[in-house]
């Protein structure tokens, strides 16, 4: 972890990239989505690549953030929604998220974290557990080599953490990106099923790969390595959905 993270944790300032007051994609109901800066992963397909670099952000305390969120409470209370912290990856700023979630819970606002769960610090998970109503975790790849190629990091701590959260009865949703040639292979899907059998979770959401975030790479002058990969066909997405449904899981295909 970088020095700046440690410094910011001690002063408990969150590094916030941006907000979306009308989030309908990141968790149940209507949600206020807070995008935090910084991510331990470097996914080749990242669609928020502008949130990775550690410069473009505002700093604020959990209290200040709550003040921004509170005016939206009447909306998400009716639509059974709440707050989602996303990013980037909020797992990079665990203490800030914990403090912010505590305040949310005090104000009866539902909390969701959208994360890769890539951390080696169990303490962070331990602190997040009681204040997080819903965990949305992206599963990237089950072959560690491919995982490294795709995200730059190993999948070992991720899978371990998910098992840990499952044991601790955390409410879990998974997200799975369908990236043609990478994650839709027979062997990876088999590994996905095998893994899912070992955890307790509520649903899995399938996200077909898209290139909407591509322009951000160009804008930042970063090379986009997935050139030539086209979004999966609707048909192939439905096949994967059916396969998972047969396993008895609740599946949402995000068309």
């Amino acid at each position, binding site marked *: 972890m970088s020095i700046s993270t440690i410094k910011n944790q001690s002063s408990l300032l969150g590094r916030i990239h941006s907000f979306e007051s*009308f*989030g*309908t994609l990141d968790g149940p*109901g209507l949600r206020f989505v807070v995008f935090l800066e910084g991510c331990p992963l470097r996914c080749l397909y990242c669609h928020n690549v502008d949130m990775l670099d550690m410069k473009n952000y505002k700093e604020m305390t959990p209290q200040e953030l709550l003040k921004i969120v509170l*005016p939206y409470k*009447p909306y998400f209370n009716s*639509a059974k929604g709440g707050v989602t912290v996303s990013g980037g990856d909020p797992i990079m700023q665990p203490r800030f998220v914990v403090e912010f979630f505590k305040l949310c819970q005090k104000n009866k606002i539902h909390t969701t974290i959208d994360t890769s769960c890539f951390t080696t610090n169990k303490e962070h998970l331990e602190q997040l557990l009681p204040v997080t109503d819903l965990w949305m975790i992206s599963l990237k790849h089950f072959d560690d080599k491919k995982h490294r190629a795709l995200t730059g990091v190993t999948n070992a701590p991720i899978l371990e953490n998910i098992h840990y959260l499952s044991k601790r009865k955390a409410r879990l949703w998974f997200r799975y990106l369908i990236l043609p040639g990478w994650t839709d292979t027979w062997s990876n899907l088999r590994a996905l099923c095998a893994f899912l059998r070992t955890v307790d979770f509520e649903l899995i959401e399938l996200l077909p790969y898209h290139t909407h975030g591509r322009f951000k790479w160009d804008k930042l002058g970063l090379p986009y390595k997935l050139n030539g990969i086209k979004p999966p066909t609707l048909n192939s997405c439905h096949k994967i959905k059916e396969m998972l449904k047969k396993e008895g899981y609740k599946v*949402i295909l*995000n*068309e």
Partner: protein
Amino acid sequence: MSAKPKSPPKSRPAHQPTSLPKAYQSFKPGHWLNTINVHDFIQKNYTPYKGNESFLVGPTRRTQKIWKIVKKLLKKEFKKGGVLSIDTKTPSTITSHKPGYLNKKYESIVGLQTDYPLLRAIKPKGGIRLVKKACESYGYKLDPKVWELYNEQIKTHNDAVFDVYLNWDQLFTPEKNTLFRKKGIITGLPDNYGRGRIIGDYRRVALYGIDRLIEEKKLELNRVCDYMNEVNIRLREEAMQQLIALKDLKTMAASYGLDISQPAQDTKEAIQWLYFGYLGAVKEQDGAAMSFGRIDAFIDVYVERDLKKGIYDESEIQQFVDDFVIKLRLVRHLRPPEYNELFAGDPTWVTCALGGMGKDKRPLVTKTTFRFLHTLENLGPAPEPNLTILWSQNLPEAFKNYACQVSVKSSSLQFENDELMRPYHGDDYGIACCVSAMTIGKQMQFFGARCNLPKVLLLALNEGRDEIDDELVVEGVPKLRYNKVLDYKEVRGEFFKLMDWLCKKYVETMNIIHYCHDHYDYEAEQMALHDLLVHRFMAFGIAGISIVIDSLSAIKYAKVYPIRNKKGVAKKFKIIGEYPAFGNDDDRVDKIGVEVIQKFMKTLQKYPTYRGAEHTVSLLTITANVVYGRHTGATPDGRVAGEPFAPGANPMHNRDKSGALASLNSVAKLKYEYCRDGISNTFSITPSSLGKTEEQRTGNLRGMLDGYFQKGGHHLNVNVLYRETLQDAMKHPEKYPQLTIRVSGYAVHFIKLTKEQQEEVISRTFHKDF
């Protein structure tokens, strides 16, 4: 049972069921029997419904046949450039035309404005010149006899207003003697056409029958007019016109073979009677908005009784509602093409308020509320009638869900905050036009279109000169001391001073117009369906509020340099730095908006109104935001000259950067108490960003409405559409005959908008996922 007619009504015990005439049998008695009181009748007799939509049925074959006929006619009308045909000979009155039918055999509810469907009538009392122009622009020639009659012998409302304008020197701008209204500072005023915005209590016709209404009107007249002073003489004269109108209404109904002198006996008659009441109004008047009021719970009382008695089944009831709604979709007025710039797409504002909550906390949602919404499914989407949901977070959940579901599917609904309006208007109010609440039968309004407030701000920056042609519009506006970089305090001060000049002119102009309208184009039929003593509102309007707010914010928080021409008129503005824009839930700027509307309201109130009307203000543009923009130079917020304004109270396009809810929260801060004539907000979103599944979309919309209205928002138009659909409809209009979208306060067939208006709608912020 035979009631003894000899015994005087006073000695008869009021609540004796045995004495009820047949039309009222099995209704719960109450005050409504003794006096004209529809509200009491509804409250005593209606059945709130908390269930879901599963009881609804599809259209009957008869309805389908009629709708097929109508669709053909509508297609023909569109192909002919929007007007099917005009009766150029017969000035329209309640009894001017023979009965008209779509198909006598299949229609269950009858009545058309003229002898043939979609044949438009002329109503010259508002102004003969506009009628002539309208006829000519569609290739017709106004009958010379009519022209002669109204040009030389009968004085119209328009003649009267311009007689007064002509000798009112102040109305002229100093340099060129051009009318104040020609500068586009106040436009759309009803000085050459019918004012509209009056809602008759058409339910009275059904509940009481015409004879009783005539009798009660006479009694009321004698009660309120004791001394013959000017006020009472006028009232007496107006009442006499009302009585004639009521008699005419009876004659009109008789031409269809129906006798409305007595109360309606069942559902079919109730709908027919109240439709006749409305039909009389739209034959007599062609005011901008001819709204219907609030009829769902009223009709439902008859429906429940008939269903219980087994007189009709659900399918027949839905057929009556469907056929009735078809009739409302056929209402037409004759308008000149320029009118289309302000009120695009040929709207008639047959606004029907649905749902809402009662003062006693019972929902006013009935099964018939569902039946009205269901017409959008049975007949497909349509802009008229302008279905308006009176929303409260306390409405039954099943109804909220159904309303949201229909809204997502049709983009034909608007939602208004019942919790805000009920304290002012009680629980029997309707909506006139788009957002104007009025207690039915007890309140009316003097419609006043709107003023271009950004232009007034520019006058303050330019020593009173018009920013486009440099002409001096108002004298005595000083040169700014801080002329290089605009100073917030100074600009605000000068702007507020000019607001006083504007408000005085505005009230005076309105007084002239409505004095003349009352005298030369009085709405006798609609006013006959009001109490004799009514409360009057005088409704003023603001266009371009978000531009004024952002301009002041830019001057306050950034550095704004005017770039002036030789005459000192700012033609452009250079903005250095950033400023918080309206629509991001940022108090720094939103507070400016609150201050401006409060100041506007308070300034208006300084100037007394005709007939003691209560001042109200609306933030509503209809579709005039495009034409207002075209005639307004560059503004200090960075808007370039000619760029359209945002509609209603909407934040400017693409300046709301913090998502849809932040934008809603900003608008919700504009206080209803200063804008009692309504605060219009139009919200467009793509289906996929509203939610992944139909269920989620419905749930999220419900949450959005609950949230917005709890935050104090007043009105929301909801469009759930893909931008691509609209773009395709521009290219292939024939593929989208029923594509309906909400614009400021009403809905239109998208294909009936001009190209410029279509482009403006498409460019407007579509809230999309990130």
